[in-house]
């Protein structure tokens, strides 16, 4: 996880100006959504603002700086909310706002695109579980699913492998990988159903990403009971889908993606099964491979 770095002394006047203003712009707002009255060293924020921002006949230096401070937070909070609507519904509005503020204050954006804003959220929540208490596991599952959704939407695709071209190759030599846009998830909750319920009320961020969108109220939902769920989050014809997987299919796909040969992946997933079970599973496994291949999931 990227930690916020302590500002280093800047070499030029312009660099010093930018470090100071960036620090002021990215400093959290008060609970009333205004700029904090005290600076980091407890001096008056009005004095700090007046040291580099000119006042005019309508606004003080503090008020002019506050416009940028508010715009920054409203923009990234709005974008973060767009990316994690189910998490907001799961932990509730108040907790979500606290989590968003803490996460964005610590991790912020280190990418030129707001698309990557939630990249470190799972690690942050694992590190600081109190933010999502008492729904830790449900929240983790939700974060993983919502991030997988982002990856599936615009992640890279490789040329799919046609399984028939591998028919004459021994299973010990067959190595397959999964499309980079596909994420395999082992979840403790059936969060995919919840995500679909929440999705119906979504509203998108401003298209240019430089102006904050209006805040959207999230409807109340009933939380699911635990149920082990294996899921592939993928895309087909440029639409994101969730595919529930059998645990054995999940195990085989995970092993393949980890670099195991087809033989090794199947062997590990089917370890301990009786002869009868293996006979029963054989056509199923063949069907799964047909399905995965049909979705274009396999690549080199």
């Amino acid at each position, binding site marked *: 996880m990227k930690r*916020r*770095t302590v*500002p*280093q002394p*800047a070499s*030029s*006047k*312009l*660099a010093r*100006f*930018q*470090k100071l*203003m*960036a620090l002021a*712009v*990215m400093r959290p707002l008060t609970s009333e959504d205004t700029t904090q009255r005290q600076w980091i060293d407890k001096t008056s924020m009005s004095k700090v603002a007046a*040291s*580099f*921002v*000119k006042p*005019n*006949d*309508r*606004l003080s*230096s503090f*008020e*002019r*700086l506050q*416009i*940028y401070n508010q*715009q*920054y937070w409203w*923009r*990234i909070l709005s974008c973060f909310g767009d990316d994690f609507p189910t998490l907001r519904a799961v932990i509730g509005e108040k907790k979500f706002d606290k989590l968003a503020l803490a996460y964005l204050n610590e991790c*912020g*954006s*280190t*990418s*030129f*695109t*707001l*698309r990557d804003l939630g990249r470190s959220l799972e690690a942050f929540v694992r590190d600081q579980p109190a933010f999502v208490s008492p729904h830790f596991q449900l929240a983790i599952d939700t974060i993983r699913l919502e991030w997988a959704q982002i990856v*599936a*939407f*615009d*992640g*890279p*695709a490789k040329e799919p492998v046609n399984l028939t071209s591998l028919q004459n190759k021994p299973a010990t030599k067959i190595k397959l990988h999964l499309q*980079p*846009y596909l994420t395999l998830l082992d979840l403790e909750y059936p969060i995919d159903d919840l995500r679909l319920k929440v999705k119906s009320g979504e509203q*998108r961020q*401003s*298209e*240019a*990403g*430089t*102006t904050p*969108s209006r805040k959207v109220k999230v409807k109340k939902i009933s939380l699911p009971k635990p149920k082990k769920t294996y899921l592939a989050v993928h*895309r087909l014809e*440029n639409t994101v889908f969730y595919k529930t997987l059998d645990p054995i299919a999940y195990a085989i796909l995970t092993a393949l993606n980890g670099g195991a040969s087809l033989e090794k992946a199947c062997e590990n997933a089917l370890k301990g099964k009786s002869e009868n079970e293996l006979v029963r599973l054989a056509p199923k496994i063949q069907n799964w491979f047909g399905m995965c291949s049909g979705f274009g999931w396999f690549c080199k």
Partner: protein
Amino acid sequence: MPPTKYNGFTDLGIGIGLRTPHYPYILEHKPDIAWFEIISENFMIDGGRPLAILDQILEHYPVIQHGVAMYFGSTGPLNKDHLKKLKALVKRTKTPWVSDHLCWGSVDGRYTHDLLPLPYTKEAVENTARKIRQARDFLEVPIAVENVSSYAEFHDSEMTEWQFLAEVAERADCGILLDVNNIFVSSKNHTFDPFEYLHAVPHKRVVQIHVAGHSVFEKYRLDTHDHPVLDPVWELYGRAIQLIGNTATLLEWDDLIPSFDEVRAEAMKAQKFLFRKKAVA
């Protein structure tokens, strides 16, 4: 502005920003519009629907790239990953120029995702112009810089905004994307004459003009792109065309986006200010 090296020797008319809610309408109806502008960063991705849509749009329309996160004015180095992805997109769209803002917005790898105004100093001119030249050399396509709306002025400034814009453009030898809405918003926020700004801009460098709507609050105006264009901004646009000549013009509408037809109708209001092209005998 006639075809020049700054606009890739093109002569485009009135365009609008390509926005998600309009995708189905555009692809189904292929509406009559000269060109689309895209937000580069929205398409600097590795795959999926946005790129598939873009490819379909490119089959029917010229597309110009407009960025929001290059931050020529930031003192840190240009982001190489950003530049590489931008170059890949330039190859895809064959955009005749790439525009981004005359602003800063990142420090030590941390992004504000805002278009923060610069102090108008000689140091800022040097820093910004150098980075524009670096980006142009890497991207191998003309670059245009856009003036931003601003809500603050700084004690450090040594010149006016229009002097700063002109100086940067001259030093970088780049084009200008003149946003007349931004000039108007800033003129109200900082009490200057927007027409003086217009007159001072090096007109030969203007490759594109932006018009947009903004929000009026009691003590300041905010560049929100969620309204039709205000009348005084059209007036400023008309004066800009008189001074510069017909120039590729783009309506920005990024939030509370109405139907495609409404956006197009708003953009086409620009037509009455443009000079009629002489018929070829």
